[in-house]
């Protein structure tokens, strides 16, 4: 522990030193010009792709009309926001986005740590590699393909669940794509299936970074394997868990569009339990031509999302400054 602290301090003084020399070394405009030109394509791209849309947030305050265009559409003040928050949609999409994310963070973390602990216990490298390959595979599939897989299970006439599972249980068939009650479970299962293996990688790295002598000492003291996991592994993973969870909370206002759009097959009967801010913005823009409300929902997401990221980062910096984004 002391060693860590000392090297940390050493790092800091080094950084301070290099900062002062930085200033001396900083080149003139003429010397920096070639470097600026090299960076130019990237700068131009980010200006267009990221910065112009930020300026375009003003669309949320306009009564957008495709004929009149972006600049000639009439201003309408906060009307878009007023109408948005008068609808039930605003509440539903906010509730869904937040609740699903909270469940994903909790169950996702538990599942990822569970997998990581088991994988690290295997010892045999080839076996770890094979198991990990299988657990990671769903993460490499597109949401479209996952939509197909879900359809093979869920569709009413030929789906695996109705034809095999429900029949064997002696239950009636269910039209899953118009049965909202099931979807919170379906979405959580699909999300875990796709992401748990992926998320376990980080925890595996954390576990393999734990000093082996701690386990040897615990074993000498007579700790069983299970006790070692609960007394050594899990406590030492705690900082990683906290950091990753806070970062995830910073993104809690954003949802995975593919999960909520492709897996439910855009079924209107399910919107109450599948609509998130991202799907609402998409539908308003592309399907309902309600650009104003869609833009207002986008601004709502951008601004709250921004403060959540800032807050999350401030918190991480306080707890674990090495892993803060800035």
């Amino acid at each position, binding site marked *: 522990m002391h060693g860590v602290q000392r090297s940390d301090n050493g790092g800091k003084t080094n950084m301070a030193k290099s900062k002062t020399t930085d200033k001396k070394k*900083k080149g003139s405009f003429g010397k*920096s010009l*070639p*470097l600026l030109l090299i960076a130019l394509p990237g700068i131009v791209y980010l200006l267009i*792709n990221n910065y112009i849309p930020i300026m*375009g947030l003003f669309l949320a305050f306009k009564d957008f009309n495709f004929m009149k265009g972006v600049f000639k559409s009439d201003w309408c003040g906060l009307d878009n926001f007023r109408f948005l928050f008068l609808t039930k949609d605003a509440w539903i999409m906010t509730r869904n986005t937040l609740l699903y994310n909270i469940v994903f963070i909790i169950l996702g973390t538990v599942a990822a740590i569970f997998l990581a602990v088991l*994988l690290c216990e295997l010892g045999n490298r080839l076996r770890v590699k094979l198991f*990990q390959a299988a*657990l990671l595979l769903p993460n490499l599939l597109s949401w479209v393909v996952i939509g197909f897989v879900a359809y093979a299970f869920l569709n009413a006439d030929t789906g695996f669940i109705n034809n095999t599972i429900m029949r064997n249980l002696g239950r009636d068939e269910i039209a899953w794509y118009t049965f909202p009650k099931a979807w919170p479970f379906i979405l959580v299962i699909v999300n875990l299936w796709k992401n748990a293996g992926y998320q376990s990688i980080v925890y595996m790295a954390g576990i393999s970074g734990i000093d082996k002598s701690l386990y040897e000492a615990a074993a000498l003291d007579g700790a069983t394997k299970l006790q070692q996991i609960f007394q050594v592994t899990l406590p030492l993973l705690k900082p990683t868990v906290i950091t990753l969870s806070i970062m995830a909370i910073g993104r809690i206002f954003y949802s995975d569009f593919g999960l909520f759009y492709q897996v439910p097959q855009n079924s209107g009967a399910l919107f109450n339990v599948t609509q998130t801010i991202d799907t609402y913005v998409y539908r308003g823009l592309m399907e309902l031509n309600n650009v104003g409300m869609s833009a207002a929902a986008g601004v709502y997401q951008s601004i709250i999302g921004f403060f959540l990221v800032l807050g999350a980062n401030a918190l991480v910096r306080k707890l674990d400054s090495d892993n803060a984004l800035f």
Partner: protein
Amino acid sequence: MTESKSFNRAATIILTFLVIVTLLPIVLLVIASFTKEQVLIQNGYSFFPKALSLDAYYYMVKQGTVIVRAYGVSFLVTILGTSLSVLITTTLAYPMARKSFRYRNILSFFVFFTMLFHGGIVPSYIMWSRFFHIKNTLWALIVPHYLVTGFNVILVKNFYQNNVPDALIEAAQIDGASELKTFYKIMFPLSRPVVATISLFTGLCYWNDWTNGLYYVDNEKLFSIQLLLMKIMNNIQALRANIVLMGTGTVELPGSSVRMAMAFVGILPILIVYPFVQKYLVEGVVIGAVKG
């Protein structure tokens, strides 16, 4: 010792079970693609179909052009998109890593801020479609959203800072190498590991992307494989609704087994490449998670 052994065995058994559960849905998709269409309609999707057939694959070969074309678009977009992305990302990261670069801090903040604040899809969509007229061009599948991400730029910048000593660059410049030459003679060759990582993730992102197509492409000639799959599924849903409304049931559609065969063909390149890149994928996830 025996305790540790029995624990090891328990871990193996639990993981074996979880691996099977994880793979079963994909296995179902593959088996369905080899199932005889009539059997599939009568008995539904099953892990043990009553009759197998290669009809779905024959059908695809016969109806080839649409699928081959979509495959071509996907490959083109993936290769072109990834190459461009690597080029622009590394050239943007290089000056950010140079201590003597006067605008280093401003540029770093400029890149970093894109990770914190998003303008969202509405202004972005209107800009790309109304001002850049990108709809129904190949560029629509490549340029918006994915070409350069702040995350990748910072990943490369950190790699340069941690792995390329300043002395090396200074030496090259004392020898009279220009900045551009220093970049492509020294920096770029040295960045092979990080370039491998970002290529892998960017390539996967392009191959699997359907959102750009959803927003910007409705010309069938530009359908990527993901977009084609998505449209087929949408048409089935739409037709199903119509069939229910009109009470007629005789519409020619690619059969269920054909659809699943197409989905399988869509993931095939990933399955083929996967064993060779798994190691880099895992390393990349760790690097990315620790710090962008």
